[in-house]
Structure formats: C-alpha cells, structure tokens
C-alpha cells in the first residue's frame, strides 16, 4: 500500500512538472513581447530592471526556464499589473474561496448522487427513477452560467430571498481570516452558487451510481447477503452500494477537472471572489502574471485532486491495497 502511495505521489509530481513546463511555453506564445509577461509598463525603471534580472528576461530560453522554476519554488509568480502586489498574495487570499465553493459542491453531489443512485436502482422503472434521470440530465445539459443567471435572477433579484452575488455584503467586516467563512452572511451568499453547482454536476454521480448498482444487484454476493437473512436495507447499503460506489469514486477526478473549469463561469456570474473570476479578469485586462498564476493554481488543484481521488479509491477497494495472493 505504501509503495502504491509513493508511486502515485511521484507520479503526481511528474505531472505537475510537465504541466508547469506547459504553462511556461504556453504563456510565452501569447502575442507580444515576452517581457510584457512580467514587466508592467507602469512600473518604475528600477523596478523593471530588477524584475528583468530576476526572471532573466534578457537571457537565453533555458536560463529563463530554470529561473522560472526557481522563482516558482520560492513562491514568486511575479507582480500583478492590475493589483500592483505579488501574484502569490492574491492567490493566497482567494484560493480558499474557490476551494470552499467547489469542495462543498462536489461533496454534496457525491452524497446525493450515491444515496440517490442507490434508491433509483432499487426503484428502477418507477416515476421517481425516470423523473430523476430526466431532471438531472436536464440540469447537466443546461449551461451552468445560464442556470446560474436564472437562479440568481429569480431568487436574488425578483424574490429577494438571497443576496445577489459576491461573497459578503459590502461593508462586511471579518474579525480574522477564518472568521469570514464562519458566519451567516457568508452562508447566505453561498447558497445560490452552491445550488447551481450541485444541480449541474449531480447527473454524473447519480447516473453512474444507478448503473453501477443495477449491475451489482445481480451479483452472487448480494444474493448471498439476502440468503443470510440480512435486512434489505443492510444488503443495499453495506453490500450493494459499498461495492457500487467504486466507479463513482473514479468519477471524482473527472468531476473535479470539469468543476475547476466551471468555477470560471460560476464565479463570473455570481461575482464570487475566487481564482476563476481572477483568471477571467486577468485575461480580459492582459494582466499576464496574474493570468499565469491563476492558471497554474487551477491546474495544480485538478492534479492534486486526482491524486486524492486515487488514494480514496485505493482505500475503498481492498483488492488494490492488499494485492493479489
């Protein structure tokens, strides 16, 4: 098991490395002078010169590459043109906003998907089953930015049940970094974007769990569990669902991959101050260091979540952990 973990972690590091390299070359392909990637014309000449030296902008490509990594490992991603502060600070401040929204959404999707899929498979063919399929597929087909707009329009503007976008009411004072998340105001602002997100991504775990359960319900060990005289609920959850949820876990990596991209849309609609919105703003205002930093972090989030999903699967499926005899 430990060997498996170590292999996986090394593998993740390799993927990250290649991803960062990809970033490096990708952003250099943007039209314009490569120095414009780092140096804002607004800065003073001394500051420009310092940055030039730090990032080796007058040196050959491979040196720039090396310095790029060196700076990255130090945590230095350059200075944002628009914010005039180091990119890393902006990221530090906002990454949690994105992660909380996305994380809670994914968690809700998984829970509802697993529980719901089990019930749907049990009640296969019923109105609830067909209704849930159509309902979840309908939401999956609806672009999340559109459903977000409508939800916000109806529940925010028209009914005024919830605030209209942003993470806090303007003028909100938090007593500390963590305090800003643990209060009712935050929750009120969280509900609409969280609902939009959950409704959109619900279809995959729900339908995969349903299909997986349908297969598992025909297996010999489920039959044996019934023959043992176990209560049907116990059979369904302890044996059937416990096995059926393995494919759903492999789905997590995929979902996170899409959700990270989807955050871009969601945060734009709801004016949610996270890395997604940051990326959109940065690209629109040609704030290259910010755009690059945001892209790096979004990708790193996906890659590390993939690792977590792998580890979770390994934990849930003893056949991987203990290997074959």
């Amino acid at each position, binding site marked *: 098991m430990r060997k498996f973990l170590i292999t996986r972690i090394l593998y993740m590091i390799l993927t990250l490395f290649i991803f960062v390299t990809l970033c490096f070359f990708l952003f250099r392909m943007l039209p314009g002078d490569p120095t414009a990637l780092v140096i804002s014309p607004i800065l003073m000449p001394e500051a420009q010169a310092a940055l030039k030296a730090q990032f080796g902008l007058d040196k050959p490509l491979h040196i720039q590459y090396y310095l790029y990594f060196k700076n990255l490992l130090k945590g230095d991603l350059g200075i944002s043109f628009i914010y005039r502060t180091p990119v890393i600070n902006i990221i530090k401040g906002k990454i949690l906003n994105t992660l909380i929204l996305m994380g809670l959404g994914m968690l809700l999707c998984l829970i509802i998907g697993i529980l719901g899929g089990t019930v749907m498979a049990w009640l296969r063919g019923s109105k609830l089953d067909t209704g849930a399929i159509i309902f979840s597929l309908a939401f999956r087909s609806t672009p999340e930015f559109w459903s977000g707009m409508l939800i916000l329009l109806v529940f925010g503007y028209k009914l005024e049940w919830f605030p209209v976008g942003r993470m806090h009411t303007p003028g909100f004072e938090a007593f500390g970094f963590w305090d800003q998340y643990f209060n009712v105001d935050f929750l009120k602002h969280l509900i609409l974007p969280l609902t939009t997100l959950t409704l959109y991504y619900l279809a995959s775990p729900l339908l995969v769990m349903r299909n997986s359960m349908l297969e598992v319900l025909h*297996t*010999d*060990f489920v*039959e*044996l*569990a*019934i*023959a*043992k*005289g*176990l*209560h*049907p609920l116990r059979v369904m959850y*302890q*044996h059937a669902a*416990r*096995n059926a949820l393995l494919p759903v876990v492999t789905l997590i990596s995929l979902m996170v991959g899409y959700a990270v991209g989807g955050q871009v849309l969601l945060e734009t609609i709801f004016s949610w101050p996270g890395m997604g919105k940051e990326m959109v703003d940065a690209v629109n205002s040609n704030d290259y260091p910010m755009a690059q930093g945001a892209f790096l972090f979004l990708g790193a989030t996906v890659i590390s979540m993939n690792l977590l999903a792998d580890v979770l699967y390994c934990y*849930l*499926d*003893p*056949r991987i952990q*203990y290997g*074959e*005899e």
Partner: protein
Amino acid sequence: MSAELLRVEDLVIHYRTREGPIRAVDDISFCMEDGKNLGFVGESGCGKTTAAKAIMKILPPNGEIVGGQILFRGRDIVPMEPKEIRQLRWKEIAMITQSAMNALDPVHRVGNQIVEAIKTHLPISTREAMMRVRELFGIVGLDTHRINDYPHQFSGGMKQRVIIAMALALNPSLIIADEPTTALDVLVQDRILMQLNELQQRLRMAMIVITHDISVIAETCSRVAVMYAGKIMEYGDVKEVFKNPFNPYTLGLLNAFPSVVGEKRELISIGGFPPNLLHPPVGCRFWERCPFSTERCEHESPPMLKVVASHFSACLEIHRIEEMRFLSTRPEIWREKAHRRVS
C-alpha cells in the same frame, strides 16, 4: 428416528418476462427427512436451482411462486411475511452457492462477513461471534489467522471452504448446496466432498445437493430427484434409481457419464435441446428427444407413478422399461432419434 424436515407439494414457479411467464418449475413434489441428503440432478435450466432458491425465497425479482406448498417443519413458507422468512434464513436453511469465486463480498473482510450472519440471528457479542468463526475455520480446515483477510486473498478451493464455514455458522437443519464443486478442479472437488460428508454426519444436517454431475450425487446423497424442463422425471433412493432406473431420461443421463469401472463404452449424449419453457409441450416434456416416445407421449402428461416403495417415475411407457433399459445402451437408438427430429 427422523422427523420430516421438508415437504414440497405441487410447487409451481414462473419467471415473468415481457413475452409471458416462463414455467420454470411445473408441479413438483418431494420430501426430506432430518439428516438425509436429497440430490437434484438434471441439465442446465431444468429448474433445480430455481426450486432450491424458492425454498429460501431468494428468487430473482421476476420469479414468482405461483402455486403449491413448501412445508418446513410443518410451516408453509410460501405465504410467509418477509420478516418471518428472514428469521428462517441461514438459521434453519443455509446455502452453499455455485460460484464461491463471486459469492463473497470483495470489500469486506471474510471474518466480518460470517460474523454478520451470526449476529443477525443470535444476540451475542462480536467477540463471541469471532470465536465461533475461528471454530468454523478449524472445522473446514482453514488457517484461523486468515480471518481478517479479504476474499481476493484466497484461492478458489479456500473460498469454497469459507462459504461452507459460513453456511455451518448457525447449525442449520438444512443446507442447500448448489453445484458445490463445479468450479473446482478434481482433486479439490474430492476433498471438499469428503469434508461435506464428514461434516454432515457429525452435525446431522440435511443437504439438498444440486448438480448436473451424477457422481457427486452418488457419493453424497441417499435420495435423488431427476429433473427435466421443470418437472421431476424420477425420484427415489439413489442406489435404486441408478441401478434400476425407471425413466428414459434417467437412462439417457446415466449413459452420458463415464464410469471408471466396467467396460470402456462410447459416451452417448442425448441429441437436441430442452424445450422452450415459455410454451412447454402439452404432453411429456421429454417426448421430443426420447427414443421411446409414442403419439400418446406427445399429448398426455405422465403422472408420477409409484414403481417400488418410495421410488417414483413419470413415464407413460413405463411398462416397457425392460426393453428401454436394454435398448438405451445402444448409441444408434439415440442418434436415430436425433436425426429423426431434424428431418
């Protein structure tokens, strides 16, 4: 002094499908005594597994007991509520399944799966249940250190033993062994059969042994029921039925199995396929493949006739049994029938 353990009367089981009901088991009756084994033998799809599963009421969702009685120690199982059945399951009637390969839940430890069965029916602590599991492992000859292993860490034969251990956990009066050795190689088969025999004698359990392999029945059972297309063709003491069969289908079956002793003879198979159970034949179900069938056989369903004490056979031409026994050893008879069917 054996009490009557199980009595099945006129059992009819259907499988509901889009095209109509499949008459998987059509009006069968048999009974069992405490401590004695009954074997069910027949081709795949003849209904033996269906009948056995009905006793535990673990038919698939589209399976339905349409008629008849299943009396377990005098109580009819057919109209029982799910809650009552659950109490009966495993404690009184347990099952050893066909493919142990897949019968164990891959994500739970083996010991826990047996403990689960025990604790569902007995109000004892997990520790005590685990002690019982160790005891069971000892009985079937498994290393007690492996209680906390996962199923995939065991070999096929060992998994089968785990299944047997689990079935014995609550000392049931009846064990249904569905093809207990089919998936195993011959050496392991032999060992498992010996073990089953020994256990059964020690613990005084009754077993229903379902198989398509006559030799297994010969080794383990005292009575046998030969099934075909949902009906019992012949039923009686094992030695009697195999030495003096009174049914053409039994004759055909016996022919198809090689014997180590005796002369080397050609294996004769029964040509053709079992009938479609959606629209089963009106008469004897075997008439199409039977070399001795007559016009009457096609239209009239044979009743179960008592041949000797506790030996029954369902055949309209039973008076020709001597002739049939003699002719059935000739391969031409069967081949001719197969050809005639085709043309």
